[in-house]
């Protein structure tokens, strides 16, 4: 450990020493360390180097970003923040309130970000009116994936309402197929929950309940219906679902053991990696109901000292939002570009559907942040909601009790 610390310190010293003569500098903290993700970051790294910059990579894997956040805390507290950090949603504003984020408005205005980003996504990148983060991609969360053969064999169409879904699931269950592949982890329960809120309550209700945290919406009859539907869905998962990872649930759909999965579009990566074809082997559609729940990865820019580092920050921000990186990165990662003017000819039909829906829902005002993936709420509030959702899903709690607990948990989370 000591030797490791020494090595780190000496690396930093070397970096600091060389900064006098070098061009743009950037130290980037992120947790994209697995196969496809690491490849995606490498694209950015290469572009950065091609523009004369020197990149210091600081990947911190583990805990879905928890470990990286702990590292970030330590760096910020010691007054030595990285140039850019993979952050998303309200966490950006939370860090801004600590007074440690930089202003990159000059880059954003020169590059015309406001014209190419959907308004609600651009909103996440601003801190009190100034730009402080750069969006990388858009994951859609409210997807339902299906095994095409299983649906065809049972004469089932992709459901467009939750009633249709329930009818299809009953039919599948009678035929001995697991209707819904699900992994019993809190965040997966929350993912399904928010798509049900969107489907049953509609976009306005979603905004009120899961973004504004309006107590009336949280305890409304609509929310009771949402929990009723969650209870129904509980009947459609197999008994072994507890603790299962999401990609194992995807595999169940792939091999025909289960028919549907509700999961963000990272699940598509699993299908594609197994050589399955979208539209033929597996089907993608938005979950029943209108609207679009997005999960946008972004890099927040931290206050740094020195012209070379500031130049690196500006260059990095510019490259991240530039069309080329947006295209290459998202082809690797399975998401779609955050900017709307990138040609999508190389993307598959699911990505094209996602981009089309993003445009139309943005106009209709139903382009909404995902609560389950930390886009809508701060950690303590979204965590409080998830606690109730997962406790309800994994017990015999009544829907009426669940809404009361939901309102109490939210009130107790501030």
């Amino acid at each position: 450990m000591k030797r490791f610390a020494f090595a780190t310190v000496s690396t930093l010293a070397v970096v600091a020493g060389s900064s006098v003569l070098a061009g743009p500098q950037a130290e980037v903290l992120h947790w994209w360390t697995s196969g496809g993700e690491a490849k995606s970051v490498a694209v950015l790294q290469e572009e950065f180097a091609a523009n004369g910059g020197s990149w210091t990579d600081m990947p911190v894997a583990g805990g879905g970003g928890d470990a990286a956040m702990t590292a970030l805390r330590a760096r910020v507290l010691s007054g030595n923040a990285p140039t850019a950090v993979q952050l998303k949603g309200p966490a950006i504003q939370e860090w801004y309130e600590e007074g440690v984020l930089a202003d990159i408005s000059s880059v954003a205005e020169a590059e015309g970000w406001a014209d190419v980003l959907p308004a609600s996504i651009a909103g996440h990148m601003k801190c009190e009116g100034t730009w402080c983060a750069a969006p990388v991609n858009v994951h859609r969360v409210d997807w339902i994936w299906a095994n095409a053969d299983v649906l065809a064999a049972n004469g089932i169409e992709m459901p467009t309402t939750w009633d249709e879904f329930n009818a299809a699931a009953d039919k599948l269950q009678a035929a001995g197929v697991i209707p819904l592949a699900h992994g019993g982890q809190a965040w997966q329960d929350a993912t399904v929950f928010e798509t049900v809120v969107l489907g049953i309550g509609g976009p306005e209700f979603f905004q009120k309940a899961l973004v504004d945290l309006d107590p009336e919406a949280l305890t409304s009859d609509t929310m009771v219906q949402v929990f009723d539907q969650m209870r129904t869905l509980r009947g459609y998962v197999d008994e072994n679902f507890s603790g299962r990872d999401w990609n194992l649930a995807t595999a169940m759909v792939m091999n025909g053991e289960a028919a549907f999965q509700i999961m963000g579009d990272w699940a598509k990566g699993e299908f594609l990696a197994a050589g399955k074809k979208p539209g033929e082997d597996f089907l993608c559609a938005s979950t029943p109901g209108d609207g679009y729940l997005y999960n946008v990865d972004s890099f927040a820019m931290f206050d740094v000292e020195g012209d070379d580092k500031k130049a690196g920050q500006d260059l990095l921000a510019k490259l991240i939002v530039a069309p080329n990186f947006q295209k290459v990165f998202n082809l690797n990662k399975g998401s779609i570009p955050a900017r709307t003017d990138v040609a999508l000819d190389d993307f598959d039909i699911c990505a094209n559907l996602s981009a089309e829906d993003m445009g139309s829902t943005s106009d209709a005002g139903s382009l909404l942040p995902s609560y389950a993936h930390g886009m809508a709420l701060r950690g303590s509030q979204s965590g409080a909601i998830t606690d109730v959702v997962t406790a309800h899903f994994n017990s015999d709690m009544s829907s009426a009790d669940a809404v009361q607990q939901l309102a109490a948990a939210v009130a107790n989370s501030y």
Partner: protein
Amino acid sequence: MSEWLENHLPKVVLAPSFIAVLIFVYGFIGWTAWVSLTRSKLLPKYEIKGFIQYERLFDSPRWDTAINNLYIFGALFIVIAMVLGLLLAILLDQKIRVEGAIRTIYLYPMALSMIVTGTAWKWILNPGLGIESMVQGWGFTNFEFDWLVNPDYAIYTIVMAAIWQSSGFVMALFLAGLRSVDGEIIKAAQVDGIPTWRIYTAIIIPSMAPIFLSAFIVLAHLAIKSFDLVIALTGGGPGYATDLPATYMYAMAFSRGDIGQAASSAMIMMLVVFAIVVPYLYSELRAKND
């Protein structure tokens, strides 16, 4: 000079570690206590706001579950591990053959990390992979053993795995205790024709009271700080049914950016430890003074 050194050498040598303990243990306990009285979220803040974090903590149903789980887990784990350990030790004490080999076998689970234990038991207890599917495969299709995925029983699977891990260690402690009992007394009792079970219950076990206390202290602090076993075996699930105070604290501090809440839960955990350790230290110190 050399005389001064001679007189003060022990103090000089001990000073660095004393200072380190003072800062890194007691200093940070004080720091945590301070932070638990603030509204710290993402980063620690130092403005005292009263007992709001403790009020939030005791209003949280998840914390209730965590504390109840600690009682269930702690009580069952300590009692069963001690009874089982004592039983194994007594059986091993019957001057049997290959005692050394058997002792090693029972002690071996202690060599595994809790993560390995948790993962192995996760597979053993998984209804689709482990015992349930095996017994059903033998033809008993009605057999059910779904404790791992049943929110009401999942905490008992953690008890099982923890006992499997630790009872061998308790056995070793007790075995050492049994061997330290004066052989003359036992022989005298045997000459008087007292049955073996009476020798154990009336002579040997009462004379091992200090061993019981040590075993209890070791197991109690294992129970209170357990974290890795829960993470590996159930991940706190189903839902948050198997949360323990340590996993609650971790979630608050590192996943949710709620440092004040995490600090208050850490303080409560420490008070629980104090409630057990202080009487122990008190009795130890008093015994020495007598």
